[in-house]
């Protein structure tokens, strides 16, 4: 019965409606954010201007002229790009070793790496703050890149490990027999073969870095502050300026939404890896 119902016309229509409904539900906050960003702060809180209002670019102009949006954006790009590159540079050899030369401890190391993600960030907030300040690293690009790299390294190694496991061991061994050293194997054989997996891992890592707020807000002030910090900075004691806040948020979310849109295929592949085999 269930199968018949699924294949019937009504079932198909029902599923289409459901899919659209869920899609719109998830999309609505973004839509609302963008809509609000074109309202003045005053209009933003008035119910009568819910959908019909006079659009203004005031918030965006204000953001670029007074809030130094481009500096924050540049910091976001620099820290996310370098953190992603660094994470891959460490993660690829690491996952390579674990996938092709596993020892008895490999599984335990993988579990231990993942367990670091279970540590509440707040537990190490103060040590981190004091330590980085006394080391003179507070509010530097270097610190942000390191922190972003380290918090994403476990998941990156896990993802790469899973991809590398799918490559037949014989191909790597054939490389060894053909006279390639380890570096050559990674460059000539592993990376070309696992390119799809590496790309989707890099993309996810970049997105995680870009969206990271907890540490970037707390370990920076001005120099290395990212877009997360800019959004957070629009919290004022006298209340929230919803128009301004929405514009900043939209401008922070924008690049990543565009990137995600163009790389949908890799992203889905990355998120569902190992699900079907």
């Amino acid at each position: 019965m269930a199968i018949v119902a699924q294949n019937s016309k009504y079932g198909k229509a029902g599923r289409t409606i459901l899919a659209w409904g869920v899609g719109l539900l998830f999309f609505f906050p973004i839509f609302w954010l963008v809509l609000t960003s074109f309202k003045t702060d005053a209009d933003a809180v008035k119910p009568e201007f819910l959908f019909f209002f006079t659009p203004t670019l005031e918030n965006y102009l204000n953001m670029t002229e007074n809030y130094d949006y481009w500096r924050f954006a540049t910091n976001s790009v620099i820290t996310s790009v370098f953190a992603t590159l660094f994470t891959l540079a460490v993660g690829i050899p690491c996952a390579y070793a674990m996938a092709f030369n596993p020892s008895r401890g490999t599984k335990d190391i993988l579990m231990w790496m993942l367990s670091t993600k279970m540590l509440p960030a707040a537990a190490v907030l103060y040590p981190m703050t004091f330590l980085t300040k006394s080391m003179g690293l507070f509010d530097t690009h270097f610190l942000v890149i390191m922190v972003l790299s380290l918090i994403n390294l476990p998941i990156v190694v896990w993802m790469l490990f899973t991809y590398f496991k799918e490559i037949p061991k014989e191909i790597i061994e054939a490389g060894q027999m053909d006279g390639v050293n380890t570096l050559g194997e990674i460059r000539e054989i592993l990376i070309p073969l696992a390119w799809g997996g590496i790309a989707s891992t890099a993309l996810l890592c970049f997105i995680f870095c870009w969206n990271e707020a907890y540490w970037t807000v707390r370990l920076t002030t001005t120099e290395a502050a990212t877009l997360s910090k800019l959004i957070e900075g629009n919290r004022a004691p006298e209340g929230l300026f919803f128009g301004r806040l929405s514009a900043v948020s939209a401008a922070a979310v924008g690049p990543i939404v565009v990137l995600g849109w163009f790389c949908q295929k890799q992203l889905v592949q990355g998120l569902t890896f190992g699900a079907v085999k």
Partner: protein
Amino acid sequence: MGRIVLENVTKSFGETQVIPPLNLEIDDGEFAVFVGPSGCGKSTLLRLIAGLEDTTSGRILIDDADVTEVSPSKRGLSMVFQTYALYPHMTVRKNIAFPMRMAGLSEEEQEKRIMTAAESLNLVDYLDRKPGQLSGGQRQRVAIGRAIVRDPSAFLFDEPLSNLDAALRVGMRLEITEMHERMQTTMIYVTHDQVEAMTMANKIVVLRAGVIEQVGSPLELYRAPQNLFVAGFIGSPKMNLIDGPQAQKHGATTIGVRPEHIDVVESGGAWTGTVGVAEHLGSDTFFYVHGTGLAETLTVRAIGDVSLKHGDPIQLAPRATEIHRFDADGLRLP
């Protein structure tokens, strides 16, 4: 040059010892075949020589140089894998060129060797294809091409034909044998198929549970198997092994007679029985005979077409000089 010597080599995986201390010499230019049932350690032994597995103890020498601790890439050996292990992202040309590129050979030299290999392996028309667009036989040819261009001191083959269909297997078997005749380079070939071993090898190494049961030329193994395992493993169809009173008559615990060494006679045969199944192949006839007073079904090979069928009585005369005698431990008696 490619003389390979194993000295007291052992291999353990954790607590399990898969290769107890083992000694073996393979001379330059020899075609050595490691043969044995699955799980006998023959592939592990090959991988130890290749360097893809670390030896637990003992030494491996190639041309008198100790390579036990040398990485596979520096041992100067080529290997052909059962699964071909081609680089799927490279064309046939690039696959074959890969080891030469890694060795830093000039472009002209690479191209020259690629063409020589491609011509001898019938791959000229496929050089710009990817491995995914080739048949199994062609892929294995590419793998062989990739192995020969680097001019190794020895070739290692790990069951290279077992993924191919029967007809192709026979063809490739001849090609590899011919390649060996032409190049005279040491080859070590792993297989579980005793026919491959018999037809290709100069030297057969029969392995069981990591232990060498016998080493010798195909005919030595055929004529004088040192124990029951080798006797039963080498030869097709298998040797008839008979226990009991018939064996005691010859002063042994077990006697073995090959199907081709039992004659079908009109009268006066040592053994009598009835034909169970008769297989008429034209050139030969195989009889599966239930012998009177024998527990085992005997396999008998008669030359030409012998017109006996199921249920017919049959008289058999084993040739006295071709009876192999084994003691209670399964070892050959002189």
